């Protein structure tokens, strides 16, 4: 169980990494800060009963993010469909387009991508964070990677 006395220490020492995850989810540093603070405030209320504060805050971050968008408190701007073929910009080797494509993913698919490929969390842990079955995480990952036009061979590998 976490002691409330260490809450401030936790905020100071662990926020940076969580803020970066929040940024990947929201793609805006201001909204990311808002999301992080909301998640930390939620964690404070449950603090005495939390065994792993960082895991708890990460879960609060993801669920708050998905609920914000589900409730449409913060509406995303509609964006164009992905082009049929990926265009390669010689300057950035297609990475800028890949980043834009990540931004066009639906909320939960984006969360899955960030948790699996930035946080490097296993499928079981992502399922726990999102409150869904492991199979759902796998299928959401596959759908997201297909939308991102990521190598199909690797998509197949990830399904295993």
């Amino acid at each position, binding site marked *: 169980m976490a002691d409330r006395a260490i809450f401030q220490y936790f905020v100071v020492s662990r926020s940076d990494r969580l803020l970066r995850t929040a940024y990947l989810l929201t793609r805006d540093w201001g909204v990311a800060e808002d999301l992080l*603070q909301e998640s930390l*405030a*939620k964690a404070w209320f449950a603090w005495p009963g939390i065994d792993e504060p960082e895991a708890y805050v990460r879960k609060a971050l993801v669920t708050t993010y998905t609920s914000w968008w589900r409730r449409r408190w913060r509406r995303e701007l509609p964006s164009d469909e992905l082009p049929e073929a990926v265009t390669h910009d010689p300057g950035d080797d297609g990475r800028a387009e890949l980043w834009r494509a990540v931004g066009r993913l639906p909320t939960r698919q984006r969360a899955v991508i*960030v948790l699996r*490929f*930035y946080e490097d969390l296993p499928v079981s842990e992502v399922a726990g964070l999102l409150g869904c079955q492991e199979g759902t995480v796998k299928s959401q990952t596959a759908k997201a990677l297909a939308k991102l036009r990521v190598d199909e061979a690797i998509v197949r590998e990830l399904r295993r």
Partner: protein
Amino acid sequence: MTVQDLRDVLRERAEGPSPANPRRHDEVRARIRRTRLRRRTMAGGAVVAMASVVAVVAVVALLPGTAEEPPPATTVTAEPASGLPERYTAPDGTAYRRLATARLTAEGAKKTSVTIPLSGLPLDVAARCDGEFGSGAPRILVDGRHTGPRGFAPCPTGMDLQPLVVPEGAKEVTVTFDTTTSGSACATRTRNGPCVPVKPRRAGWDLAVYEWTPPARPVTPEPVRALPGRLGGKRLISQSTGVWPGDSTFEVEVVGTGGTIGIDQICSGDLAGRMWFRYRVDGKESPATSGCGVWKKGAFPMAMAEFTLPKGKRVTVTAQVGLWGESTNRPVDWAIGVYKK
């Protein structure tokens, strides 16, 4: 593109310089204070909140120059509500039959009425919203008066069902759905900033009145989950469970520590959201009526009501449990927990 490219892109974007915020901890603490204040207020329940809103609106409406002229009452002929089914079966198997429909559009009349003959079966009103979450929801009036718990949620996703409470013995009632607002409001974004008028958001609403046939036998609700041992920094010291309508009271003795005790409640069953709880602590009735959370998964839906007790004093906490509308053969499981530091 490969998965490694995706990892690289995510790292590149995330590992860039992030805006430093040395005041983060203070800002989080301020957010915690606001949340705590909001929870204390919210724990009061909808009844007091609605009464206050009506009172404020009434006062504001009397101030010269601030009140919007209420539009004349418009009775709109009922039209088909496309988003609401003619027949509907609730998860507990209760059959609903639509009696009348109405519609309010974002640009059209702010008020609409339907008149329905009563057969004696219980009634519900349903709404489906087409608009943004937070848009003003219609109030529900029966023969021009508030009779039920509250209006609909502010533009919920999916169908929202609320009980329709009608006068005993009535043969016919007119149900009015009203989104009219009176008065004005403004909000300041910074401490000494200007007060910017808040424009009410309007949405389209499909509305309907349903009657439902009670199940032939009581439908046993799924038991409520065990209350958390700790909640909001307090530990569970006493709890009680019951099934409405058989069980409708709760009593416990608590010794005060000079701080606050917290009381929270959860319910299960199709009508769980219609339960209300009134508390009396040390002989004093709480000014607020609490609603009931439904906890199926995820975090506990905390809405703790807090009461300050004098140190060392033994006090009695009693609860009166009730339900808005009718519940024939549709019982609700409830659990109350008392928490103390």
